[in-house]
């Protein structure tokens, strides 16, 4: 069953256009959304969430049209935008006290469990948290209202390798029960090799390929040089696909 279906999503700006992006994410899977900086990953995620108004296309979440069921769909999702800090000077406890009022199925016991598991201290202010801890706090909020779909925009960017690895194992654990799904954008392709079940590749605002990770890698092996034996990694695939020359 698909928890998310994106159909011909289009958003046009003066100097950039996201054109006809379509993909779907099944229950219990992690999908990595890749592309170089400025390819349209964040625009895709924002269009899915109606943070930017798409010019065309349809988003179906949990089998319902997102635009007409925005509030109920949002009850079941958790969103983490890496690199954006909210209420820097507020304590975690203050933000949680406000946030939980919006979710009727808030599970306080689960929240306390996640705080403990992630070593988060509720009296700390947001500015006192490291980047990794901020992501974990947002995840704790999302998991405490039993979000079935996590949408993460570059959650591992700017993190050290240890924190990144820590988060990636956490993502895997979160989907292991088969009830949750994760869609996350990144340009750190090595992260995806560790944890993504599916990969969607966006290049210059257009969908290049969406497939299961192994099939995806297989589909780009034609980029290998004649004398190359080893399979191309995701990073190599991306580099060879995006490589440009400058006439200077």
């Amino acid at each position: 069953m698909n928890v998310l279906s994106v159909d011909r999503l289009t958003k046009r700006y003066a100097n950039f256009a996201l054109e006809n992006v379509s993909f779907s994410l099944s229950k219990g899977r992690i999908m990595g959304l890749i592309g170089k900086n400025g390819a349209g990953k964040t625009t895709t995620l924002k269009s899915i969430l109606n943070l930017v108004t798409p010019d065309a296309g349809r988003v179906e979440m949990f089998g319902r049209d997102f635009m007409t069921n925005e509030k109920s769909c949002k009850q079941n999702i958790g969103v983490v935008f890496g690199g954006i800090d909210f209420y820097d000077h507020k304590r975690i406890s203050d933000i949680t006290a406000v946030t939980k009022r919006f979710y009727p199925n808030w599970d306080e016991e689960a929240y306390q469990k996640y705080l403990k598991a992630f070593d988060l201290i509720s009296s700390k202010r947001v500015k006192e948290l490291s980047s990794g801890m901020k992501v974990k706090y947002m995840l704790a909020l999302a998991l405490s209202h039993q979000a079935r779909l996590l949408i993460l925009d570059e959650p591992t960017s700017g993190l050290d390798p240890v924190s990144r690895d820590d988060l990636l194992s956490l993502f895997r654990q979160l989907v292991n029960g088969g009830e949750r799904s994760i869609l996350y954008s990144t340009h750190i392709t090595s992260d995806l090799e560790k944890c993504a079940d599916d990969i969607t590749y966006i290049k210059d605002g257009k969908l290049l390929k969406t497939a299961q990770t192994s099939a995806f890698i297989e589909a780009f092996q034609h980029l290998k040089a004649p004398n190359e034996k080893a399979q191309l990694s995701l990073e190599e695939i991306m580099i060879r696909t995006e490589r440009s020359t400058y006439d200077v």
Partner: protein
Amino acid sequence: MFDLLYKELRLAAHPQLFIFMCLGILVIVPAYPYGMVFLFGCLGPFITFTYGRETNDIYYTALLPVTKRDIVKSKCALVVVAQIAQLLLSLPFAVLRLGLLSEGNPAGIEANVAYYGFGLMIFTIFNAIFLTHFFKSGYKVGAAFVLAIIPATLGVLAMEIIIHFPRFAWLDSVEPTMMVRQLPILFFGLAAYVLGMVVTCQISARRFDQVDL
């Protein structure tokens, strides 16, 4: 809606909003241009909206299970709560002043019935321009404030000047009969404020719906 207003007061509001809210008590000062109180009532929302931009408040709210229209409604509600609370808070001090200081206010208009009516009209003008302009972008708070505070200040000046014309001296009176005569100004101000906020909120919501965050 109540949850969103709670969020506004607990997370989005800058402490300065509450300080400016309390400045309604300035009507107890023996000699002070009381029109300033309304300008403080305009400054509070400006500082809070600026603070909201720095804390990514709108962004965070948009990720909650609410729509963009709900965000606009909650911001409008916050402004109304702050301004009306300021006026209500000033009322007991305006009454107290009548008993304590019978000399009158040499620096400007008295804190009388007409004063509150004018105040509501000034707030209506400010809110209509500030909120509708701000929600065109969701972040250009400085431009919205400059555009809105100019007519609001002119409104305050007009209020302070008009009472010096003998024909309008009754507007500066705290005599009970004169204050009854001033009642239509208060009612007009109240009606303008309510109607103005409804229209302002609708226009702002429509504009913000088109904004890409």
